[in-house]
Every structure is written in C-alpha cells, then in structure tokens.
C-alpha cells in the first residue's frame, strides 16, 4: 500500500486566491482544509465581477490563505510533505505570485515542490470527490474554459474538442449584460429563464450539425443581441416577458449544443472500452440546473455514470491543486526552484486542436 502524504496546495491563477491541505493517497484522499478568498462578493455590489489582477494583492492574500489552511487543518508546515502550486495556465501576475510563494516556502522548509496545471486540477477533481476510475470522460465548462477531455491518467489527457471562441460562462455573462441583468450572469440568466419560454425565440445552435466535439458560443451571443434590438424597436423597449423568453431560449440553445456534443464525446470515449464508463462535469457552469439535468439525462440514455463534484470544488480552489500535486508526487514527480509560470499550457499537447469553423484560408 502506498504511503499517505499531506500536501499543501496553492492556487492564484485567476480571480481567486486559495490554499488548501489534502491528505491521503491518489486513490483515497481527503480535504483537510480549503480556503478561497474571492473578490466576487465584494464587487457584486458594484454591478460586475472585476478580476483580481494585482500580483501584489494575490501575494498579500496568499500568505494569509496558507496560514488559514494550515490552521484549519490543525497543522504546521512541519507536518506537510510537499507543496503543490498552480504554475499555469492563467493570468501571469497571479500565477507568478503563487509560484513565488510556493518557492519561498519550499526553499525555507526544504519541502519538495510541484508545479500543477490548473486544468489538470479541475480534470482530476472527480477522482478526489467521486473516486472515478481511469479513463473517464470530463466536460470542463466554466467562464474561461469549455472542453471535453478523456482523462486516462494523472498525466495523460486527450482533448476531444472544445469551444473555438467563447466559453459558455462568458456567453452567460455577456447575455446578462446585453439584457440588463446583474453579474455574474450565470445565475441571473438562469433565474430569468425559469419564467421564460425556451421556444420563444429561434436562436442558432452553432456547429451542431458538425461531427466532432468542437463548439462555438460567440455567434449565439450576437444572435441574442440582434433579437434584443429587434424587440426594442418593435415594442419600444424590452418587456420582462420578452427578456425571460430570450434568456430561456438562449439557455436552451447552450443546453442543446452541450447535450449533442456530449453524446458525440461519449461515443468516442466508449471506443476505449472503459471498464466502468463514467462522465463528470466540472466548472462553474455545472451549477446551472438546466444544463446539469440535461447532461445527466444524456448520460443515462447512453448507459454511463454521471457525476458532478460539489460546486465549491467545481470552481477555482486549491484542494484540487493539492490533490493533483499529491498524485504527481506519488508518481515520483517534482519541480525544482527553476519552476516558471506558464500563461498558456494546454493539457493535451500531443493533439493539434481541431478547428471547427474551417474558415481559415477562406481565400483558397
């Protein structure tokens, strides 16, 4: 049996600053503590989610987060076996401050250091929360990401496809903005959609008729804009019912695209003949009940187990980084103090991304 480890995780690659402690083995790990300092609440009052850009602000909060994470776990650095830190992809200032913090702790304590891909953290979370067996199929769908991955091992990810432009979370935010709904847009569009008719307006389903798992959501946003302008012109303004119908129609278009592409992804995944076929959805957009419900139905229809990590572990957090670090340490991997921040770091570097639009070289 493999030895259990205690790993401190640090995450600051996007808007939030986080630290966490995870204990165990890759097959059975538990979260001892997880601290996330979010800017969202603070800025919601001002009508928008403003990113935490300042490397300095991240750095200041990191020390505090690490301290709280250790305290909540009832540990000191002397009890920790390794330090895991998000070293990309993400906002360079944020990633750098996390990496600097981790290097400092590593240099001061002599503890091993490991740089973790932020997306690998998300991708491995279903192992931590639901003990999924490799290989499993993952849909990562959030504000900044949307991709289907077959997770074959802690270091082997195959990307089946993803958005070629906006991520769905971004589309929700921008639609909310276009329709005068509060930010963050996901919950407010979902709430409006509950009182609307999803067949109210005909909106496009980009790339729905194409093979493969690539998706596009940018044109959908533009279609909502056109529809809004037509309604404003016809009715002299946007009625609440029209707005609700538009939200419901938009949400259904996103649902349809995700459901259709999930079916295609499941077929590709089943080609690997997994012993226990499993699908997991992660990312903030997984909080949308309509999307979640539909994905669950698609899985049931295709005879594959559905799971979704709890929301706190779907959105950015450091427990996933600590866990991913733990699995990498277990494989004998570690980084040295030359670890650098990587703003761009695709999980599947073996595979050329598939472009669905086919518009490149239109002149030819």
């Amino acid at each position, binding site marked *: 049996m493999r030895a259990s480890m205690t790993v401190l995780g640090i995450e600051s690659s996007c808007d939030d600053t986080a630290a966490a402690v995870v204990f165990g083995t890759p097959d059975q790990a538990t979260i001892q503590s997880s601290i996330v300092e979010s800017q969202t609440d603070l800025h919601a009052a001002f009508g928008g989610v403003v990113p935490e850009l300042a490397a300095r602000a991240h750095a200041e909060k990191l020390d505090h987060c690490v301290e709280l994470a250790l305290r909540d776990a009832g540990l000191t650095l002397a009890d920790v076996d390794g330090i895991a830190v998000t070293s990309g992809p993400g906002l360079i200032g944020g990633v750098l401050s996390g990496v600097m913090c981790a290097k400092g702790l590593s240099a001061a304590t002599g503890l091993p250091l490991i740089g973790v891909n932020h997306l690998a953290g998300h991708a491995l979370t279903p192992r931590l929360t639901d003990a999924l067996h490799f290989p499993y199929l993952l849909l990562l769908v959030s504000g900044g990401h949307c991709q289907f991955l077959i997770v074959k091992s802690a270091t082997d990810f195959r990307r089946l496809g993803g958005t070629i432009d906006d991520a769905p979370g971004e589309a929700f935010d921008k639609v909310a903005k*276009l329709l005068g709904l509060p930010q963050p847009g996901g919950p407010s569009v979902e709430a409006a959609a509950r009182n609307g008719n999803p067949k109210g307006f005909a909106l496009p389903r980009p790339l729905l008729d194409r093979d493969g798992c690539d998706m596009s959501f940018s044109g959908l946003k533009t279609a909502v804009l056109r529809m809004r302008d037509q309604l404003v012109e016809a009715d002299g303004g946007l009625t609440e019912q029209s707005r609700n119908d538009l939200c419901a129609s938009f949400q259904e278009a996103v649902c349809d695209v995700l459901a259709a592409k999930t079916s295609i992804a499941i077929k590709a995944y089943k080609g690997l003949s997994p012993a226990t076929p499993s699908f997991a959805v992660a990312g903030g957009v997984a909080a949308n009940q309509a999307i979640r419900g539909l994905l669950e139905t698609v899985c049931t229809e295709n005879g594959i187990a559905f799971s979704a990590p709890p929301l706190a572990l779907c959105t950015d957090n450091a427990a996933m980084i600590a866990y991913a670090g733990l699995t990498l340490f277990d494989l004998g991997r570690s980084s040295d103090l030359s670890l650098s921040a990587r703003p*761009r770091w695709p999980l599947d570097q073996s595979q050329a991304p598939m472009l669905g639009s086919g518009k490149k070289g239109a002149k030819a």
Partner: protein
Amino acid sequence: MTNRFATQSLKSADDTAQLAQAVSSVLTTGDVLLLEGPLGAGKSHFARHAIQARLGRAEDVPSPTFTLVQVYETPDLDIWHCDLYRLSDPDGAIELGLEEAFETAAYLIEWPSRLGDLRPADAVTLQLAMGAGEDHREATFSGQPSGFRTRLESVLND
C-alpha cells in the same frame, strides 16, 4: 473620427477574416492595434483570424475575456491578444504588464478604452461597427502617421 485612413464595408464574417489576414501580414514588433466596437461586432473574430494567419497553423484562439491576455508565439513575432473588458481602470492594465511589454510584441487589444493614458501615441484603432445586414460590419482604421499606419495603408488600399 480623426486621422481616419482607411474604411472597408464587410459583407460577411469571412470578409472580416480576410481583412484580419491582410492586417496580420504586416504586423511587427511594437505594433498596437486597438479593436473597438460593441459586443458582437466581431473583435474576437478579427483577432482570432489575424493570429491564426500569422501562426500558419490551426491553433485554438479562445476569447481572452476571462484570462485577459493570451500570448501567441509565431515564428517571427509574439502576439499578445488582450481583452480589457473586465478591467475597471488603467491600474489593471499596468498590473497586467502591458506598459512594459508594448515594445516586445505586437498587440491586439479589445476594449482599449480601459487603457486610459497607457494608450500608445502611435497605436492604430480599428473600429468595427454593426452594418445594415446581419453579418455586415463597417471597418474604420484611424491613427496618427506611423510606420504601422504606413504598412497598413499599403495592404488596405490596394
């Protein structure tokens, strides 16, 4: 608009892509192209095709709205694709390192109004406005005389 030097009527998303390829062909280190226009005008679409043309390969160019900056390394030029939509003021742009980096790469910047005083004097602005038809866009280039402007004029006005 002051210092306007080229306009084009784009009839389709493909037209926008072709314009992007033409602009991309003259980009060099230090060039700053500011992409202005409302949500849905095609700013990201333009940037995506400009970057892909220069990369010469089919690489995903996702929207940088959430990440704020995506850096692409082409064979002879680094291109920074920035989206300042989520920034509230120029302090954010300073924190992103835009100020120092303006001389080391070419820049395609969406929502540049957040740059404030950081807007380089020799930057070129491409305004994309909604046209009459659904996919129609009016493209307007403006900027003070500069090497970048001269290179753009050579490909836009032939």
